[in-house]
């Protein structure tokens, strides 16, 4: 697991860590893989949204057989020869092995309810969904692909922020993705963002906030600074729903919170509206 500070805890007293990834952290119901997959990784008992991998997410959104992946072979380099407790290259290789992905974003062309679109979907299991040069470049290419084909861009975000191991270059992915969105908008195309848990820091402070429509999943942490860091730095008492999608909706930072099974039909409706 990548050591990215995303401060996922939202309970006052965090429950003991679940023994198995298929155990619901909220109500402790346990599921077989196929049960979870059929339920789109949503707990049948309490509605908790389990994290969803990028490919599963894409499969749940697009019309069957319409997805064509782009730039799948882009790999991170190690521009700083970064070494903390372990070399960055080793962390990358391990993430690639365990996720089967080359980096934390999958992009490509697809159709949702018959409307063509471009997709840029993040995968939190790859180093905490952190944004380095590859994520920035893939997102940038997704914007260009959408603009060239004259279709909207749908982006699903899930990220702990910028990838520290790429130093200042990872910070530069913020202006890079911002400029890509601007070029997409100049080409007359829309971007619809679905924020999944967690959407934080550098990703929230760049392209994720710039969608024409911003949607989120229930309970997703959506914060520039996560609760743990806010608490440690400011000693403030945090509200119970600090940084959650529900609070963001109340304060006017989101258009809607949607349960996972509503996302595809909603995207279909929005694509028709923007079409």
């Amino acid at each position, binding site marked *: 697991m990548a*050591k*990215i*500070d995303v401060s996922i805890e939202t309970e006052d007293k965090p429950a003991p860590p679940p023994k198995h990834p298929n155990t619901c952290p909220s109500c402790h119901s346990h599921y077989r893989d196929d049960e979870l997959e059929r339920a789109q990784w949503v707990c049948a008992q309490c509605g908790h949204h389990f994290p969803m991998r990028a490919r599963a997410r894409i499969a749940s959104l697009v019309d069957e057989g319409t997805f064509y992946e782009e730039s799948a072979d*882009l*790999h*991170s*380099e190690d521009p*700083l020869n*970064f*070494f*903390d*407790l372990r070399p960055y290259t080793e962390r990358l290789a391990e993430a690639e092995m365990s996720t089967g992905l080359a980096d934390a974003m999958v992009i490509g062309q697809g159709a949702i309810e018959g409307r063509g679109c471009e997709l840029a979907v993040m995968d939190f299991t790859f180093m905490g969904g952190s944004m*380095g*040069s*590859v994520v*920035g*470049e893939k997102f*940038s290419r997704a914007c260009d692909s959408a603009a060239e084909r004259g279709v909207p861009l749908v982006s699903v975000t899930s990220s702990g922020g*910028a990838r*520290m*191991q*790429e*130093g*200042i*270059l*990872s*910070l*530069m*992915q*913020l*202006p*890079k993705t*911002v*400029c890509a*969105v*601007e*070029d997409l908008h100049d080409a007359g195309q829309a971007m619809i963002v679905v924020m999944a848990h967690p959407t934080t*820091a*550098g990703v*929230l*402070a*760049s*392209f*994720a*906030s*710039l969608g024409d429509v911003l949607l989120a999943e229930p309970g997703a942490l959506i*914060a*520039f*600074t996560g609760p743990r860091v*806010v608490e440690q*730095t*400011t000693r403030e008492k*945090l*509200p119970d729903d*600090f*940084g959650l999608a529900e*609070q963001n909706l109340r*304060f*006017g*930072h989101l258009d809607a919170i949607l349960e996972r099974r509503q996302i595809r039909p909603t995207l279909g409706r929005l694509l028709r509206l923007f079409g």
Partner: protein
Amino acid sequence: MAPSEHELRLRERLNRLRNVPLLGGAKLSGELERLQRQLDRIGQEPTGDEIWRSVELARHPDRPYTLDYVEALLDDWFELHGDRGRGDDGAMVTGLGKLDGRTVALVGQQKGRDIQERTRRQFGMPYPEGYRKAIRVFELADRHGFPVISLVDTPGAYPGVAAEQHGQGGAIAMSQTTMARLSVPTVACVIGEGGSGGAIAIALADRVLMQEHAIYSVISPEGCAAILWRDAGQAKKAAAAFKPDAAHCLELGVIDAIVPEPAGGAHVDPAEAARLLGETLRESIDDLVEVPADELRRRRRAKFRSLGVFA
């Protein structure tokens, strides 16, 4: 690394550095020797100790802040207050002034000198209100054709409950978007700490400069150490690993030029530091006002969209 290979890298690095508009030497003939010395110095790969020295100098309590440079460089300064919505953020200073007779808009973070001022200015960490104040001044500049100068000096955007509720992430994103849209020339200079999203929010500029001992980074050395080493005390090691110094930022293409500081750092001779900064700002604006607005915007976006290393 074999010595010959190391030498090769150094020479390549020096060559690359010579090709960048380091202060546009043309107008600085009197300082060529000094520049050459500086070039030789930054041509060497900075060591961990040198990087840490920059971290310390960038945060030095006597280091000149945004308003010190305003006073030294701009005539007829008129400060603009408030975001026209919620408040006036003391950590973000905005205003209009004359640089060599030309009206410019200036935006920059401001730390404080004493504890009262530091509290009032949140140690240079803006709330979303600060970024929205910057946005409205960027737009004002755009309406009237004023070049924009951004001075970056922040540990980061303010990490608090209210800041989140008021939309810190969205405000930082919108500030960058606004800069990406401007038709006027923009020059940003990191004059102290260029801390993460809070810094890039006002640094999406046509020309990005860094003072010799400023730092520019994705996370503070302490924050990085706390996460990756699980020990904030390893900050020096973390800084050596993620290389926030000006020479490395130049090499990675993140900045366009390094602004020299007086020997020992900007705080040793603030007047000289201001003179050196002013000279580079003037040259940069003189160059950029020649470029048509569409071309300026196209180049600005193309530059930022090219940043990154991948295979």
